[in-house]
């Protein structure tokens, strides 16, 4: 196990640096090909060059390497990595520390993602197990059809439709019903309300979870079916164990291993999905920040925030890999 851990950590570091470099190079190329974003801010009303130079220095954009196209600007990159290590991700065009802006918005996004994760894991696995156990029967077919349908919906389509028809129209109808309790009514709101930090995130959370839920259900189902065919199931039955134990203890553990791996990759999906969902439901989270920056064309913010998220993603994957080794003893000794 120790060797496996060491190896994973050794892989982790160059990959992190590589991804950061990729982002860095992209931003550098952008400036080199599309021109100076500082000047672009002012358009025709540019202040004197000295002021522009000062601003460039503030944003760390005063390196001469930015004048030659294709130059990877390694010096700048090293500076940047140093900055990141000190948790300094630069400033946005209005002068605020990006780290501050992001930390303000993180809690909301974490709440949203948590709701989504819990929902997709529980419902997804349960549905997958039910479908796998009753293969080709009604439950199985129902699950297969519904999950396939869910996967076919792009997140934003699902989100927009849910917002219009469920959150808004159904929510309005609900308000006219006397029997509906307050908390239920507050759940069906089309936009995020900070007075109900958890309730108003339920529907956006479900939208965010939809695609992953479907994938998890299908994965669990396939994995369970495969494991039910495995030789060790025959041995377990030959030992005189009850079917409930054979499935619940022997196969489940094996079946959940690929699901755990998937959850790691899924965090990347969730980040992208959160972006869209927060945009649609007006949630003031990190995704909403990117959404606004895209509209405002604020590339420094976009790149800095994506860098943060990429780091989170890579770390999460590392943790999932370790969890995987805990669950599957065969991996520990590779």
């Amino acid at each position, binding site marked *: 196990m120790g060797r496996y851990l060491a190896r994973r950590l050794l892989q982790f570091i160059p990959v992190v640096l590589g*991804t950061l470099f990729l982002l860095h190079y992209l931003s550098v190329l952008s400036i080199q090909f*599309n021109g100076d974003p500082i000047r672009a801010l002012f358009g025709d009303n540019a202040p004197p060059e000295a002021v522009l130079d000062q601003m460039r220095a503030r944003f760390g954009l005063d390196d001469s390497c930015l004048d030659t196209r294709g130059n990877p600007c390694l010096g700048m990159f090293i500076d940047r990595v140093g900055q990141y290590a000190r948790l300094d991700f630069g400033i946005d065009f209005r002068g605020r520390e990006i780290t501050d802006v992001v930390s303000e918005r993180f809690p909301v996004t974490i709440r949203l993602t948590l709701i989504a994760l819990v929902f997709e894991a529980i419902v997804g696995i349960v549905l997958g197990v039910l479908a796998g156990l009753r293969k080709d029967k009604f439950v199985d077919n129902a699950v297969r059809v519904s999950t396939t349908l869910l996967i*076919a919906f792009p997140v934003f389509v699902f989100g927009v439709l849910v917002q219009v028809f469920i959150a808004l129209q159904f929510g309005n109808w609900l308000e006219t019903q006397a029997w509906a309790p307050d908390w239920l009514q507050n759940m069906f709101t089309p936009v995020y309300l900070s007075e109900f930090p958890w309730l108003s995130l339920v529907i956006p959370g479900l939208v965010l979870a939809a695609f992953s839920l479907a994938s998890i259900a299908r994965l669990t189902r396939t994995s369970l079916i495969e494991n039910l065919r495995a030789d060790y199931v025959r041995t377990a039955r030959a030992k005189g164990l009850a079917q409930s134990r054979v499935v619940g203890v022997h196969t489940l553990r094996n079946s959940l291993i690929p699901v755990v791996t998937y959850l790691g990759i899924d965090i990347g999906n969730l980040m992208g*999905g959160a*972006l869209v969902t927060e945009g649609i439901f007006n949630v003031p989270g990190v995704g909403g920040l990117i959404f606004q920056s895209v509209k405002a064309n604020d590339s420094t913010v976009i*790149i800095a925030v994506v860098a943060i998220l*990429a780091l989170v993603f890579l770390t999460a994957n590392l943790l999932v890999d370790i969890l995987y080794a805990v669950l599957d003893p065969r991996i520990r000794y590779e």
Partner: protein
Amino acid sequence: MSDASSMTVQENVPTESPEEPQGKKEAARGLWGDAWYELRRNPIFWFASFIVLIVVSMALFPFLWTSVEPGECYLSRGRQGPSADRWFGYTFLGCDMWSKVVYGAGKSLAVAVIATITVTLIGVGFGTTAGYFGGFTDTVIGRFTDIFFGLPFLLGALVFLAIVPIRNVWSIAGVLSVLGWTSLTRIMRGSVLSTKNKDYVDASRALGAGSRHIILKHVLPNSIAPVFVLSTIYLGVFISAEATLTYLGVGFQQPNATWGLLIQEGQPWATQGYPHLLVIPCAFVVITVLAFILLGDVLRDALDPRNR
């Protein structure tokens, strides 16, 4: 079995029997032959293919599907809902909705096809190289893949599109490819790794075959099945992705007619009593993506040798 002194009963030798029973359907069909046999009898395959064909023909020959130009818009007709003579109503600018949808298929499909082909070529190339040659090559390609993998799909797309200001079929397809090649590469590598250890590869090598020959004739055909499945599904995924990017404002821009834009336009009107402006383009996206996913699913089931 290789020990001459083990006394074993003659195992099945599949070729030299003079009296093979009649009517055996299992005669040399191979994996693809078997798969086609399965697919032919699967109604979902036909249903999905039917839809795909419709969409493809809308993309290639829009004039077959509508005589109205998408640009023929009269504000006076704006936002009219579905009626007896115009099943799909009009957009908020008064353009014929059906026509817009039909013409919208073209660009979306073009992006998806180009991106899928690119991603498949890259994936097969890198994956086979990494899987077959192993060692240092594998490590390098592996790290390179990990680096791109570290960028979540949508976020990476935003970054790339922020850099590249052009918005046409090629740039969007390019961005999707740059972010989508990692999964296919990994799958291909895994597939090649398991094929590489099969006995027929060793046998071929023992007969003096060079790497190129072994890869092209033995490894590739036997490991490509999962990629085939994934590519089909990717066609759907990319349509979905392009629509998402367009909706976010970083994909195609007005006045192009793509489904993402129609949804973007339609969204604010849906609550004002014009749900068709939203629902119809949504339905088209979902049904198209669904068709590709179903196709991928049935392909996967058909190619799975364990389903015999």
